[in-house]
């Protein structure tokens, strides 16, 4: 990944919608640790795993018991398990490799956000934030749950700690969601409560170690760590996003916290917790839209923690605001006129993925301007015209001078062609466990058909590919996404070489090709089979053959042309 010649501005932010993914009605998304796979929870209870490199469906996790819409998905650290929470109050743990359900726990309430314990390779603990009460730690093997404290009364530390298991008699402020998250290694849980306080709770013994009050004291809706664990983001009801710097070390944070706590003997009770809290988190920045004062939704950090992105929670809007860590708003991205329901930033690349209420996943990427000097090394791109002053002897006829280049190269230097450099972006990857980065790609068999020997496509198609990125929805200027089935598709479609097989390739029509018809007869159509968008044609069936595949989109069976 960290190859020296790849654009050093990888840590930048996206600008336009590059593509969208469609498969069923997706509700929530999560990247795996390396960003090679994207898991999406659907409204029908299944989880779809996309191979992010090819933008194709890699796997589907389905089970007859899981039919309720998924509210959140979370990957395990090594990418072998996925935890999905659904509206039927259940939590399901899936094994990604074989696609089987490993565990299923039913709680008393529907969980809005479920997070697997990040420290372990075979996770059995998870943190579930229900819709309207305190977050709970659930043991997936036994099904038992422990309620986390959401507030500390003056009676001192620990007295509000564990309620008897499985009872919600905590009397916590009713019917307001409380947000919680694990820290990077899972030994501490940061809980944001409805009084505008962040509580740091030990995940093993559920003791509240520290309290950090947020100014304004309004309900905390989201609480998120950056990928490296150095920054914490809170989203409060007072329409402000706050970024805190995490002063605790990444590893063994709980121990450090206990040490701080026990060293401090001046204060007691809540005062003490607040003092300890001030040593754990430091308010770094606040982000808000001073003009329109919008509520925020699904805020998160970029992969390197340099940027913060938040979505506008206003009705029907699909707007993304990007700030840099210094607090300046750098970009507002506008998406299609469909409300946004979830958002995720790619762990490594400057890509953002957003889910709209229509069940589509939009991929935002940098607008790439072709780097022409990459094509010819002696080509220098100029920003503006430069006066060229010629040398005195520019046009003189010189006798052939020896090119001394070869002599400069010391050909006897030792070269190492075997040692592999570690990838610094994933410096903490534990080499002991195999991380699952890819699901094996099994080619789906072709239907035997008579080969359409049409070679209608000529160099004309080649030319149209020279934009360098046939994926880009050309008409998506200024971040406006155009919905499929309109003109941009024609642009994309025509430039794909799928057309090569069709006789009508050079026209922009979507007539069913001979090959398309044959492929339509393909039996055993699995939902993951690539199906083209049949923009303008009269067919409503799934088919291959038409050139819109490059969108990476897969249609549901019942989508027709009226899809718009």
């Amino acid at each position, binding site marked *: 990944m960290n190859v020296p010649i790849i654009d050093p501005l990888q840590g930048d932010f996206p600008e336009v919608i590059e593509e969208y993914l469609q498969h069923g009605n997706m509700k929530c998304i999560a990247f795996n640790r390396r960003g090679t796979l994207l898991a999406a929870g659907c409204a029908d209870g299944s989880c779809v795993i996309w191979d992010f490199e090819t933008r194709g469906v890699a796997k589907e996790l389905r089970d007859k018991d899981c039919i309720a819409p998924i509210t959140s998905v979370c990957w395990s650290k090594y990418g072998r398990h996925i935890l999905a929470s659904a509206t039927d109050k259940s939590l399901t743990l899936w094994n990604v490799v074989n696609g089987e359900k490993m565990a299923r726990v039913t709680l008393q309430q529907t969980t809005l956000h479920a997070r697997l314990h990040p420290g372990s390779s075979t996770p059995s603990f998870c943190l579930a934030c229900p819709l309207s009460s305190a977050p709970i730690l659930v043991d997936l093997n036994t099904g038992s749950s422990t309620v986390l404290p959401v507030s500390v009364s003056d009676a001192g530390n620990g007295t509000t700690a564990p309620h008897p298991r499985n009872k919600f008699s905590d009397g916590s402020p009713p019917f307001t969601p409380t947000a919680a998250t694990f820290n990077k290694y899972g030994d501490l849980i940061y809980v944001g409560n409805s009084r505008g306080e962040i509580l740091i709770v030990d995940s093993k013994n559920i003791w509240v170690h520290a309290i950090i009050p947020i100014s304004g004291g309004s309900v905390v809706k989201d609480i998120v760590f950056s990928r490296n664990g150095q920054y914490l983001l809170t989203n409060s009801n007072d329409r402000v996003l706050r970024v805190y710097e995490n002063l605790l070390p990444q590893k063994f944070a709980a121990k450090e916290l206990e040490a701080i706590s026990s060293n401090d003997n001046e204060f007691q009770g809540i005062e003490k917790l607040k003092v300890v809290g001030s040593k754990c988190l430091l308010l770094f920045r606040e982000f808000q839209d001073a003009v329109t004062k919008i509520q925020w939704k699904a805020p998160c950090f970029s992969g390197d923690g340099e940027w913060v992105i938040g979505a506008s929670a206003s009705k029907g809007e699909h707007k993304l605001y990007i700030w840099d860590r210094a607090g300046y708003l750098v970009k507002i991205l506008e998406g299609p006129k469909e409300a946004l329901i979830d958002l995720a930033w790619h762990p490594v690349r400057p890509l953002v993925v957003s889910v709209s209420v229509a069940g589509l996943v939009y991929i935002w990427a940098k607008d790439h301007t072709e780097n022409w000097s990459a094509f010819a090394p002696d080509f220098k791109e100029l920003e503006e015209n430069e006066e060229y002053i010629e040398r005195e002897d520019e046009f003189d006829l010189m006798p052939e001078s020896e090119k001394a280049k070869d002599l400069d190269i010391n050909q006897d230097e030792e070269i190492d*062609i075997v040692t592999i450099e570690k990838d610094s972006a994933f410096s903490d990857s534990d080499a002991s466990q195999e991380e699952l980065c890819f699901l094996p790609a099994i080619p789906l068999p072709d239907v035997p058909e008579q080969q359409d020997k049409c070679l209608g496509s000529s160099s004309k198609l080649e030319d149209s590919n020279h934009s360098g990125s046939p994926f880009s929805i050309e008409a998506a200027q200024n971040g406006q996404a155009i919905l499929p089935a309109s003109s941009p598709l024609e642009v994309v479609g025509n430039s794909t070489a799928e057309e090569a097989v069709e006789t009508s390739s050079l026209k922009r029509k979507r007539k069913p090709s001979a090959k398309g018809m044959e492929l339509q007869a393909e039996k055993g159509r699995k939902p993951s*089979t690539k199906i083209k968008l049949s923009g303008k044609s009269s067919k409503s069936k799934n088919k291959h053959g038409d050139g819109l595949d490059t969108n990476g989109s897969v249609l549901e069976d019942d989508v027709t042309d009226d899809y718009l």
Partner: protein
Amino acid sequence: MAAADPPSTAAAADGGVTPSIPQPYVLRETLTGHKRAVSSVKFSPDGSLLASASADKTLRIWSTSDLSLRAELSGHDEGVSDVSFSADGLYLCSASDDRTVRIWDLAAAAPVKTLTGHTNYAFCCSFNPQSNMIASGSFDESVRIWEVKSGKCLRVLPAHSEPVTAVDFNRDGSLIISSSYDGLCRIWDSATGHCMKTLIDDESPPVSFVKFSPNGKFVLTATLDSTLKLWNYSAGKFLKTYTGHVNSKFCIPAAFSVTNGKYVVSGSEDNCVYLWELQTRKIIQKLKGHTDTVIAVSCHPSENMIASGALGNDKTVKIWVQKDEDQREA
């Protein structure tokens, strides 16, 4: 055992100046069966199989342990130019003059998918290390990236202005390098399809082959002026040159042999397989035995075995091993 030319002849022929390899390679077996020129040979990633592609439109799969024929794959309509194994060794992809790239299931010894889209001969193909994509280069001057699962063409890279002679992925699959008769090697970001770099030398002889080093930091290029060069691609400068063989007409691939010392291996139009020491660039052995241009070489991933294939006058695949092992076999 087929009679092997004792490698000492090679050393003697050069006047005894050439250093010789401590354990010279000798011919172990000659695999016959192809009816026309062999175009490519590749070992599987685990070393248990050897695939050979030929102008007779078929692919042959041999077992490396006993060198017997395991399967013959037919289905292409024209001669096959290149073959590549998937990372798990379960699938093969082959590029053919019939403009298609085909994916074969080795367990069933049958074709699984046909990737159509190129508008001229498909010349070279390669799986990426994750084996969810295939890159193929063609005489239509483009490089195409295909998704293995659906067979969809994901990208068409406007790679060159002459036929593309080789494509290769680097170790983590993030880069693709392509070479062409137009004298350029271009490096592409496989995720986005954007050109990252172009390697060009002063004179630009047609580049007939390119490949990443095992650690992905260097690239080895072969040009039709009988030269092999090892480049540091980020700096855009070449570091080593290997000469002595003959290569001015055909696209002859080269390989790194790292199992027992570091060598560069290449075929040649004088019917020999050349071995150079990586660091000193000296020819340490010439394997003789073929009766036509050696058009393909491949090194076994873990054993000291080299496979070579030759053109129409010869039509065979020869397996060379280092002498010690040969004696142990006998």
